[in-house]
């Protein structure tokens, strides 16, 4: 859509909310605006509906502290009242942090900070940090990624140029937090693809469970996207 819509909210998706799919999240917000009595722009045409758009789809099961949803307010309302009004009518795990006028176009969004939490029930593998470093030290590392567009059902991507920075920190005896900055779009690196690639590279380091959380979103120049 060529038009940039005027208003955005930034919201968190955590807890039970992470199991709401991308499409369901949009439908949920469409209804929530109506419940909150916030008058927002509706699409024209045959099947009119309230217009909302989410900056970057979030995979099912991932949490996020920095989701951005765009819409147009139709009637005057103080922007700082929007979070409170919406939060009163949202399901558990979805919380609006702020509402503001759109700043940059979605297409300028470039990188994402993620925290990937790896759980090892039988203790953290000694070679974890080293193995991860070794994987990323390669010239290139091409992995298969599921794709609906490709006839083969997958595409091949090189993950190396899409990992900009990373750091691992153990937390207790069984958990390691991997903080990393990854490409967000055109092309993007889904952290689940990164971890699949890693467990292929170092099967001994395969975690028993992995959690993913988006922390922050950035423009090309490193400024926060808003």
């Amino acid at each position, binding site marked *: 859509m060529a038009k940039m819509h005027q208003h955005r909210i930034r919201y968190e998706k955590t*807890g*039970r*909310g992470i*199991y*709401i*799919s991308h499409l*369901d999240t949009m*439908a*949920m917000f*469409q*209804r*929530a*605006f*109506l*419940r909150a*009595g916030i008058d927002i722009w*509706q699409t024209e045409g*045959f*099947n*009119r*509906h*309230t217009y909302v758009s989410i900056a970057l789809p979030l995979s*099912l*099961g991932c949490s996020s502290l920095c989701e951005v949803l765009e819409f147009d307010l139709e009637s005057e309302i103080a922007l700082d009242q929007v979070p409170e009004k919406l939060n009163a*009518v*949202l*399901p*558990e*795990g979805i919380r609006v942090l702020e509402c503001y006028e759109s700043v940059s176009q979605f297409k300028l969004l470039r990188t994402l900070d993620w925290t990937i939490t790896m759980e090892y029930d039988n203790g953290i593998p000694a070679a974890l940090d080293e193995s991860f470093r070794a994987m990323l030290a390669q010239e290139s590392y091409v992995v298969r990624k599921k794709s609906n567009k490709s006839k083969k059902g997958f595409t091949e991507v090189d993950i190396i140029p899409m990992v900009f920075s990373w750091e691992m920190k153990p937390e207790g005896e069984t958990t390691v937090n991997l903080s990393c900055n990854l490409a967000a779009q055109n092309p993007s690196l889904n952290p689940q693809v990164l971890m699949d690639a890693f467990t292929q590279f170092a099967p001994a380091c395969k975690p028993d*469970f992995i959690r993913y959380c988006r922390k922050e979103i950035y423009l090309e120049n490193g400024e926060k996207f808003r």
Partner: protein
Amino acid sequence: MDPKLERILLNVQKPARYTGGEYNAIIKDKKDVDTRFAFCFPDTYEIGMSNLGMRILYGVMNGMDGVWCERCFAPWGDMEEEMRKAELPLWALESGDPIGTFDFIGFSLGYEMAYTNVLNMLDLAHVPLRAGQRGENDPIVVAGGTCAYNGEPLADFIDIFSLGEGEDVTVEMIELYRTCRKQGLGRREYLRRAAQIPGLYVPSLYKVTYNEDGTIAAITPEEGVPAVVTKRIVQDLDKSYYPVKTIIPSTEIVHDRVMLEVFRGCIRGCRFCQAGYCYRPVRPKSPEVLIRQGIESCRESGYQEMTLSSLSTSDYRPLEQLCDGLLDYCESRNINLSVPSLRADNFSMALQQRLQKARKSSITFAPEAGTQRLRDTINKNVTEAELLQSCRTVFEGGGNAVKLYFMLGLPTETDEDVAGIADLAQKVYLCWKEHASHKARGVRITVSTSFFVPKPFTPFQWESQITMEEYRRRVNLLRSKITNKSIIYNWHDPDTSYIEAVLARGDRRVGKALEEVWRRGGRMDAWSEYFDFQRWMDSFAAAGIDPDFYALRERSYEEVLPWSMISVGVRQSYLWRERQQAYKSVITPDCRVQCMGCGANKLVCDGQCDALLPISARNKQ
């Protein structure tokens, strides 16, 4: 969230089915709760959350201080597998707590094919399957819904059946439980006392004996237990609870919209229809109350779609007033109002045109039978002329699709009646040819046939179902009669309907087969991907049950039917008379033309069935 659950949620499809946390889900502080109720729906989340009855009872129970009602749905196969692997017992969506520790587990029984899910859910909850095996620490297992009118196939697994509308009796049942607990009375004493509450049927307190030919000799209650349990109804729908503020699922469900129930009961008396007899008497809500509740429901939910619900919405007297009131609100807000269950005979053109602003290209009718003779037999008082007139209206308005629903195997059906279905479809086609405003697009006429299942508490409760072979023969006959390429014919497989017929009129001996089906892996039998006909037949054989005895056998008036101790308010003699009228193809006028004295009016406190307004609204005037 349970860490075991967290680890399996992403291994299954549609995890939002299992997590709860939706807007308006009720979370209570366990400190303030003394009685916990797990409302179980024996089908998927998407089906169960579409059920208005569940939403009503959820609100009623959670309106009680100290009572927390939570929801639970049948897990799909992938989740069940993960649960069993992880040894994770069935949990309630609100708290995530295992329901086996609750005071009550309540099932909503809307469809016979969900019975195996009832057993499977009890097993997944780690609750002993059979009522007789349950101890003082096990939940009281209750069941209600349309199938509870003959719940006998589940009699061994259910502690209490709740008959009829649950708004009042559920509260009484829970209050008695709390009283008994305070007095230190045990499970058995509670059940005995519960049996004294009108509308509660405790199957373990009734002994069933059989004749040598397999029919029932007698159903004998224990001393002091009522011989007949009569269903409960809500007297004043204007005053009864309606869930304006209700759970809004965070994932798409089947009926994802505001559902506004305009009245209960039906004046029509179609002789095959269980709901038509069981939900009597007719009790309307006031249009003022409905308009207010409809508008509030839209505001509270954010839904942009609303549907009126009842068995025959055109029979709601102030329908126009109601629609006008709702549309005044809806139209300016782009909320779509739909009014299904409109009859072909009093199809209101003005109303339809007002409703169908966009894309009303198709219309659905259920004439049920192909000839006027058979329609008279089943008392489906729709004439061909009325139906064609309605089709003409649709075609002239640019519509180009008609769906027609029929049943095959209705009592007295002949080959002529079967061929009549093809004739009727052809007439609809000719009507299109004559009246269509846009012929270039062509027309789609879809004919669907299902396999008639005789149900308890209808005039056809004594009938035999036709055999599956005979059904297939009639399907093939009809196929051969439909030659027009614009007419598409779909038919149901008879396998499920045959099993449904066994369960619908089964007695408690059938429970053994049901358990056998479940032990052999049967569950989600309402879903074709899970239903396995051979498993059912093998299980009947293993349990020593002859399914034909239940499905195909014609009963005599004298026979003690398995549901003889239950009353829905309509007299057996009335049903029998209706059956005789059916054989004479004599129609019975609807309740408004003439009261035929079915008996259901005695359920209303002032004896006024189908009054213009609910009692409270009448008193105001």
